[in-house]
């Protein structure tokens, strides 16, 4: 059991997190986020942030549980210009 899941922070979220990625204990996403810095957790839950699990864009962010080896990416709106 246990092992690691990985969170990946893109764009400005990387700056906010102070890192491009973070190894976390697997489990329900709510629980994973509760273990993070509060300001970062709030930013990650912003409506405009999309999620990709193992490279696949998620249409719903509710009810996610990370298992060993999962990679969950937080994708802020892409840049214009």
């Amino acid at each position: 059991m246990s092992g690691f899941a990985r969170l990946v922070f893109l764009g400005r979220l990387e700056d906010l997190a102070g890192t491009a990625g973070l190894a976390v204990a697997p489990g329900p996403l709510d629980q994973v986020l509760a273990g993070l810095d509060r300001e970062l957790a709030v930013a990650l839950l912003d409506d405009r942030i999309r999620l990709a699990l193992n490279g696949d864009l998620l249409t719903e962010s509710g009810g996610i549980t990370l298992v060993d080896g999962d990679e969950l990416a937080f994708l802020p709106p892409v840049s214009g210009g």
Partner: protein
Amino acid sequence: MLDVRLSDRAFDPAREIAGFVSRVPDAGGVVTFLGQVRADHGVLALEIRHYAPMTLPGFQALGDTAVARWQLDGMLIVHRVGEMAPGDPIVLVAGASRHRRDAFAATDFVMDHLKGESWLWKRERTAEGWRWIEPRGQDHADRARWG
């Protein structure tokens, strides 16, 4: 022939174009778009971040769409990631076709969708430091042109 690449180092647009043209001898027309870091408004550097599992597949899907929609002999998409200086190439898109209208439309289409739908995050460094580039309303208008 669809050639889609991300490049984490500078590329030479003229060499890429020459290579592409040599692979489409039957095409009557080749349209290219080259985007480069503008040297005119105090930007000292541009950084583009990507997410490997999504960025390249996204470009590939866009290229597939263009190839399916127009009669093309070839399509090339090369996009820089990482840190660039003013004057550096950012993106090169080329379309080759028997009749020039297809190459124009496909290249224009890819550019309209690249800018707004690619999984890329950009920030600029000016004298005041780094600043993230926000989404633009114009990108939606650009994509809406294609129905």
